[in-house]
């Protein structure tokens, strides 16, 4: 399981919080260069990426995207500017063209309430984080 996000931007840390909480699942809290994830997941058959979403749904809402659904997500402005703008969708596209995608890959989004600087996770997001940890550790 790979969590993506920023620890000092409120609910953007949701994916990292899931990675931190896992006990029996191999996990990585990815804060540095996102492309380094590609090297790590080569060794696994199944990879789950967890990141915060901003889709207008209820805070805490969980979105599950299979590999075929991932390409339907809008990746934002067409750029590839390194650490600040490559998200899970671009990462998966890059791995796909390089032929290094794991057999099963899934993206789980947790809808954020706030991306405020320095804020803790909001309550609905904390609850969804706990639910994801429970589910992934017992999968």
């Amino acid at each position, binding site marked *: 399981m790979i969590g993506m996000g920023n620890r000092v931007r409120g609910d953007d840390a949701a994916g990292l919080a899931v990675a931190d909480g896992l006990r029996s699942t191999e996990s990585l809290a990815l*804060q*540095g*260069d996102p*492309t*380094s994830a*590609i*090297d790590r997941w080569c060794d696994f058959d199944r990879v789950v990426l967890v990141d915060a979403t901003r889709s207008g749904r209820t805070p805490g809402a969980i979105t599950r995207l299979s590999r075929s659904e991932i390409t339907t997500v809008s990746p934002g*402005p*067409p*750029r*590839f*500017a*390194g*650490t*600040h703008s490559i998200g899970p969708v*671009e990462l998966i*596209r*890059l791995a796909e*063209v*390089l*032929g290094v995608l794991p057999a099963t890959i899934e993206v789980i989004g947790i809808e954020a309430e706030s991306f405020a600087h320095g804020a803790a996770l909001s309550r609905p997001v904390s609850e969804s984080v706990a639910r994801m940890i429970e589910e992934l550790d017992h999968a």
Partner: protein
Amino acid sequence: MAEREIAVDYLARVEGEGAMYLRFENDQVADLKFKIFEPPRFFEAFLRGRRFEEAPDITARICGICPVAYQTSAVNALEAAAGADIGDDLRRIRRLLYCGEWIESHTLHVYMLHAPDFLGYPDAIAMATDYPDVVRDGLRLKKIGNRLVEFFGGREIHPINVKVGGFYRVPTRAEAQSLVDDLEWAVDAAVRTVDLVAGFDFPDFERDYEFVALRHPAEYAIDRGRIVSSEGVDIEVAEWPDFFVEEHVEWSNALHARRIGGGAYHVGPLARYSLNSAQLRPQARAAAQRAGLGEVCRNPFRSIVVRAVEIAHACEEALATIADYETPATPSVPVRVASAVGHGASEAPRGLLYHRYEVDAAGLISDAHIVPPTSQNQLSIEEDLREYATPRASLDDERLKWELEQAIRNYDPCISCATHFLDLTVERDT
């Protein structure tokens, strides 16, 4: 009157938020602005009232791509204020850390941001479909840069191991040897990169820049030296304010720097190469010669070749330094700064980065001045755009936008750093 406007509202493949606006009247450039709208960052104000020891950790936060440059210029300034010398062993580690940042930052730009321009792709992901091995090399090289930064800096982004006076912890000789295999591969990969990018098609475009960079008699300057220019400037770092000035313009959140009594100047890989190419490491120098760069390079589009040469240099330098690495006797030397002013500079991947601090009797920073490379290059970028666009007014809007965006990316502008800006608009009066 024939008027035509060309605008890019949000520049792609640059770091931070900026735009470009160009207006032609009868095929003459009537107005041109490189706009930085990324919000101001206020770091210089954050530093006031903080202890001098905090400067490297606070300024590292200015940039996720070149934090080592900020840390190095900060510690250089504060150590100069104290009259302290950290000695050669510790300085070598600073240079190793800096080599990691050059490899990481230049590789990101060469492979992910700039090469797609020359190969005709919108981004590196599209490029990877046809050039998977090239992109794989790029990712691995970048990872090696990251690893160096993490190894000597404590983590790959915003390193935490740099302090005024040296480091919190230094690796042992045995630990450092673990980097050798990766670096041996990296030197070869970097030389392959030079050969690859040297084969791209470059527009026939040269400018008579005043190049400004650090120079040091012993080495291709990265972390120390005097400030020199191709027009004869040769000064101590502390003299920067006597020769250069920053000015506010209403269309940019980044200050524009220029020579006092003069105009634009150019910092970064082209400047370093043109001033100091004789000091490159052997394989980097040989690759530069094969690439046909000559002693001086005035075509900004060829900056991708110079960056690749500098990646090779940084890999060779890191490898050689690790071969001779001895565990330093102490990770740092004591430094106390009080009632003093210090100036420091280093060669960030994008060019000269100047810092100045005033520290009060209690060791608190009372004033800070930080001049990043992108703000020094803004005038030069605008002049490039004007000179490039004028004879190309007959190009259609989309083509012209695409080429002008490339002219901006030649500088690998770091807008986040400079705001303390990219969008592109072209207007034509026809």
